[in-house]
């Protein structure tokens, strides 16, 4: 399983492994690594809104809701300061929408804007 480290905010806040993009999101003060694509039709989940109770992310394309708990539970990760290390599953974690296969794929980093609802508050250190 590929292990990747990337920034939780700013430049290079998104890692692309085998064609699947992952970002670090924070909902209700708790962070997690998630697939940046909506499982419905591959919409930009990194730009999702969050329901008032924090239980679901709402994709901006078709307002498809995805449970935060499900996203939170998928990708094992550990954040240390402003960097996060994630262990990417060998199988693509998106359901429904056909993402590229992960196994053996290249890894790259890029910037993806996050919606304010899932942005990690940045503190000075």
């Amino acid at each position, binding site marked *: *399983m*590929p*292990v990747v480290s990337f920034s939780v905010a700013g430049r290079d806040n998104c890692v692309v492994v085998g064609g699947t993009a992952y970002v670090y999101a924070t909902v209700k003060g*708790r*962070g*997690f*690594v998630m697939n940046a694509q909506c499982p419905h039709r591959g919409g930009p989940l990194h730009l999702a809104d969050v329901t008032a109770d924090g239980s679901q992310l709402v994709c901006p394309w078709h307002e498809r809701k995805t449970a935060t708990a499900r996203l*939170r*539970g*998928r*990708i*094992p*990760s*550990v*954040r*240390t*300061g402003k960097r996060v*290390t*994630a*262990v990417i*599953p060998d199988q693509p974690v998106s359901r429904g929408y056909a993402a590229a296969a992960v196994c053996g794929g290249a890894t790259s980093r890029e910037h993806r804007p996050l919606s304010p609802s899932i942005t990690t508050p940045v*503190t*000075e*250190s």
Partner: protein
Amino acid sequence: MSRVPQHVPFELGGAALRDAIIQYATNPIYLDADDWQNHDNPYRRQLRPQILPHLDFDRVPGRENILDYPSLAAQRLLTTIYEADLVFFPKSGLKGKEEDFRAFYSPSNRALGEKIRPALERYAFGFLDDEVETSGKWTKASLDSYLDSLEMNGGDEQSPAERAILGSADPRRAARMWLVQFTADFLSEASPMLRNVLGYYGPTQSEWFKVIIDEYGYGVHDTKHSTLFERTLTSVGLRTDVHRYWQYYLNSSLLLNNYFHYLGKNHEHFFRYVGALFYTESSLVDFCRRADRLLREVFGDSVDTEYFTEHIHIDQHHGRMAREKILDPLIEAHGEGIIPDIVRGIEEYRVLLDVSDGDFSAQISWMDDQPELKKLHGPVYEAIREGRVEAPVAHLVEPFNELSNTHCHEGDELCHIVSGTMRFESGLDSSLILEAGEGVVIKRNRLHGADILSDECVYEIHSVGDYRSCLL
């Protein structure tokens, strides 16, 4: 059934916490010393109780403030509290120190320490809750991938602390200061680890014990790791009595050592300890190889480095044992739910190493820069005198041999001598003599103290915040 009173968990905060801390720290064995070093008395630790009424231990500092004075005070307190569980005797025997011995191990001292320990631990280690956060479903397979990806060995690349020693204006002084930072840990080596040997928890307990058998030299005192370390200290002219150099311990050195006591004392953190243990044992091999090389480069062949060369060998086994015999069987027995705590322990320890590297490197620069910082007194004092900078000022008058035990400040300060003579201490074997009209810039978070060499010394401390603003 008779009515059961409601259970109220123990919690201490606010004025009650402050009062309890003061009650603990005013034990006569914890008062200020009139010498920079302690003399073969493991019970004497300077806790500066006179400052404690002014500190707030309720608000947990973030990482950016973890080297401020309240944290140093908390770490000194915690070291003292934790070590009441360990046995120490003066090398020269108890004679004449019986009262201190009883004061340190008395039920009163121990009870007062235990009462304030949870609040101090929250203060000292609370920043790690923000600094390290695990998420997602960790499996044994994902943990294996993560562990395999860790760069634990560092290879030949020097750490910032090692670079600071070799790049110092006085590498021997810097290396001695470095070794002193380890004495709180290495002289009572593996004591925190022993906290996890007690109890009854299956085959892993015996594997844990095997690591300790190595640390303790198989009952042969000459091969006990602390004995090897004593030889290293002696070979470079340092003394080996416990906490002789108490006043020279950096905040982060105590933080690192206390972290293992914290995890070992509070068994709900057992799995975090397992993670930190794995990382320590696995990363020590290359560290010790570099330490051996560094000490030889600095001191030549006269330095005894067997402590480090022994670890190069034995920790290759300990790293493997920690993973295969402790970590893996624990997951097998207790399930994958313990993995996030194991990962957390690994990452927390790495954070602490980073903090420690930065703290030590900054202290060596601070020691090296003393002549420059003395020269900077002129322009900084001028800026204050001309009113270009306004800074709160404290006017102090102190008598001969008044020793301001080591401490640090939350911002830069300027020390200005009005009359008399002061020895300004900035580290082991690092000091300035300041006469009337002279002074020194005191940098934020840097450990320092002062001794009055004249009958009386009148001086001022200007809290300038950032001294560079005085140079604009």
